[in-house]
């Protein structure tokens, strides 16, 4: 079985997932009301930064490709063009 703590995921995807989750949380918090004006302004600013970061991540991301070696953990990075 795969141990969850050994799981190492793409940083691009992880940062996106994290930023998106926080953005969603902020919108939910603002929409549920009960925030002070000062707090709302701070949340709004943070949300704007996160939305921009998400869009930029999507726009600038480039697909990374690796080839798995025959040995289980000897994974080496390969140029995708090799296979064309």
């Amino acid at each position, binding site marked *: 079985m795969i141990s969850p703590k050994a799981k190492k*995921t793409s940083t691009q995807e992880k940062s996106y997932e994290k930023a998106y989750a926080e953005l969603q949380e902020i919108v939910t918090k*603002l929409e549920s009301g009960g925030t002070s*004006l000062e707090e709302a302004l701070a949340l709004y600013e943070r*949300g704007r930064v996160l939305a921009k970061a998400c869009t930029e991540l*999507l726009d600038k991301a480039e*697909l990374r490709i690796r080839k*798995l070696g025959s040995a*289980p953990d000897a994974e080496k990075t390969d140029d995708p063009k090799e*296979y064309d």
Partner: protein
Amino acid sequence: MRQLPLLRPNFLTVTELNRLARLTLESDPVLQDIWVGGEVSGITRPASGHFYFTLKDSSAAVRCVMWRDAAARASLPRDGEAVEAHGHVSLYETGGQYQLYVDTLRPSGQGELFAEYLRLKAKLEAEGLFAPERKRPIPRWPGRIAVVTSPIGAAWRDVQNVLARRFPLSELLLAPTPVQGEDAPEKICAALRSADRARADVILLVRGGGSIEDLWAFNDEQVVRAVAALHTPSITGVGHETDFTLVDFAADLRAPTPSAAAELASPNKEELKEDVSRLGQRLVSCLEEIVIEKRNLLQSLEARFRSASPLGRLQNIRQSVDDYSRRADASIRGRLSLNHTRLDGIIRILQGVGPAQVLDRGYALVWREADGRLVRSVALAPSGTPLQVQVTDGTFPARSEQRTGSGTSAASGKEKG
């Protein structure tokens, strides 16, 4: 001719050999009127109009020819179609090729390969390998996608293209393996295990289209079991839309093609961007609502403050003072104007009895010029007395002229402007 080989039994020319073989085949009555069942593959139909194809089962193949006349009566079979062919067996001498000369072709109920496929499918199904409750959800946002396929196939390129367009945030891992041929099943199993160890979020098992024989590795029992045993959620995309291989049933999700498998494994970048922009919009409207709400609260507080404050009461008092003074003013003015009217009446009466009014009606006043006495009697104006006569619009000089007797006099004079 038949005697020729008998003369030299151990030596034949190629031509002689092929002829002998042909005649030997043609001399067997069973081979001259026979039905053969198998699956069609590699069909060609050149301009001549003849059909050439191969009939196969899981372990053998035979070349087949169908001449133009017979072919015109038959419908062109599909690659992989299970058929029953009737004809005779002979040998094409020029190529030394043994073949079946087909005169009738009909689809068979189920081809041998298909029967094997069904048998294996039933067996694995009975084991519960294809059970719906075994199916796991595919992660929404895969950070890592492992692809089990041939590194030189079109399928691998298709998968790369789709993911570069839809979800470039992910990392793509290739577990390379041959996808057809004798050793393909074993290599596919090894690649699947290697992909499973790579801790990917999803595994794609893909291969481009081909004949049913080309896809056969994906019906291999060991491959199907390897797919079912994966710890990582899996998607298959083998062949074309109409091809169903057994790995499709064992995987968590089946896609009709390799590209479709890549699409099912990934969210669409454009939709994600729209989603983020919608969240941004909600953020803005949230803030607007909060500001409006706070402002309304402030305004209603302000209104309550005004009505409760001493300033407000003072204003009320001021207003009532203003009101009273206005009423007092009006009452005084009314009385004054009444008095005024009365006064006007008195003045008019007084004016009616005054000398001016009398003169207006045509009377005149006469004074002596010398002493200014009003001439009230004839005796006051003896003949020749200079007089002043006043009428309503002015005065003119005159002189009295006494005539007969006393008591009458006349004034004569010139009017003066």
